[in-house]
């Protein structure tokens, strides 16, 4: 790998992101590539007992709450073109980061394919029902919830870990229910999400090295204003959240998402609150009428 010859921040960023992306790419190619049709035991659904359950719409494999979960996850994944486009607009001049967004989009696209496949093969949704749902979902468009590259890296780190936690819980649920198809689906997809969260964390690590106070303020701001994409995008999302497994509780997100992320950068929860207050005070002082020129 080439070493940075220049001390300029832009050069350092580009070189560092290149290295991080190459490590991400290499590991993904060697250990994480999977095929939605070949690497999932779909034949289990053709076993006579399961096929009978599907036909009769009985059994754990075909419960409506499974459909609600998968349909909701699929819906969020359907906005990958928007996520990728907006991510690329922010990062196009940084090779490693832009190429990560492209790879991320490819990997996430398999998630939507797989959820759709289960919905249809299980009979939980007919093709017509699915197509109607997809059309309704895509009436909306996703826009950046935060405006800077660094803020979106904070958002990505939190959103990916939250998604991983949701999928990990799903995997354990379907292990207990002896559904090997859904176990493998959430195993493969969860692994991708964990890798995505790891890349965003490494990106943020660089940001904390370059500007620790600014990065801390951005992370605190994103935590304070965080919401999962489904809130704005998926119809009846509040109602869907009543279905066990669609989301995670505030407690789980705090304990297994926010706290570990803060710890990653040497922050305590008090540090986070102090950074948040600093940012809010600065923004308030810059508002018209604040008296500050």
């Amino acid at each position, binding site marked *: 790998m080439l070493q940075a010859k220049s001390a300029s921040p832009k050069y350092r960023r580009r070189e560092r992101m290149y290295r991080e992306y190459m490590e991400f790419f290499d590991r993904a190619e060697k250990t994480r590539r999977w095929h939605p049709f070949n690497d999932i035991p779909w034949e289990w659904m053709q076993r006579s007992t399961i096929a009978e359950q599907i036909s009769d719409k009985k059994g754990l494999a075909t419960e409506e709450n499974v459909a609600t979960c998968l349909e909701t996850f699929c819906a969020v994944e359907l906005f990958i073109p928007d996520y990728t486009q907006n991510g690329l607009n922010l990062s196009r001049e940084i090779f490693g980061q832009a190429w990560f967004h492209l790879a991320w989009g490819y990997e996430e696209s398999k998630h939507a394919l797989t959820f759709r496949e289960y919905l249809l093969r299980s009979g939980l949704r007919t093709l017509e029902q699915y197509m109607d749902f997809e059309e309704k979902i895509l009436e909306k468009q996703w826009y950046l919830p935060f405006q800077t590259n660094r803020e979106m890296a904070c958002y990505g780190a939190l959103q990916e870990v939250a998604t991983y936690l949701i999928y990990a819980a799903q995997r354990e649920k379907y292990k207990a229910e002896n559904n090997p198809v859904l176990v493998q689906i959430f195993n493969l997809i969860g692994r991708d999400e964990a890798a995505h969260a790891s890349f965003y964390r490494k990106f943020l690590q660089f940001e904390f090295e370059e500007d620790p106070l600014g990065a801390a303020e951005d992370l605190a701001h994103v935590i*304070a204003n965080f919401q999962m994409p489904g809130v704005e995008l998926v119809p009846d999302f509040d109602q869907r959240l009543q279905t066990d497994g669609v989301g995670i509780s*505030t407690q789980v997100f705090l*304990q297994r998402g926010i706290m570990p992320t803060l710890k990653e950068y040497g922050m305590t929860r*008090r540090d986070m609150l102090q950074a948040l207050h600093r940012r809010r005070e600065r923004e308030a002082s810059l508002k018209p009428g604040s008296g500050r020129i």
Partner: protein
Amino acid sequence: MNAVNLNEAFVTDLIQQAFIYALPERKEKMERLNLQSTIHDLGIQSVAALEMAGFIEDRLNVQFSDDELAAINKLEDFATLIFKYS
């Protein structure tokens, strides 16, 4: 008024103050606050819960553990921590 009631009143008042500190825009909800209220029902998101905890910690000069904080579901759980650490 016996000592137990006074403590409960103090703790409830402290939690209400912490709620107003963290969520001043929801002050009107304080009328309906009781210790059985869940943080979800009150719209207390992660940062607000941490701000409430920080407020209480500063008032009592204590430090709650992160794991116990993350487990808070109802305002009663704040009360439990207050009694435990005081």
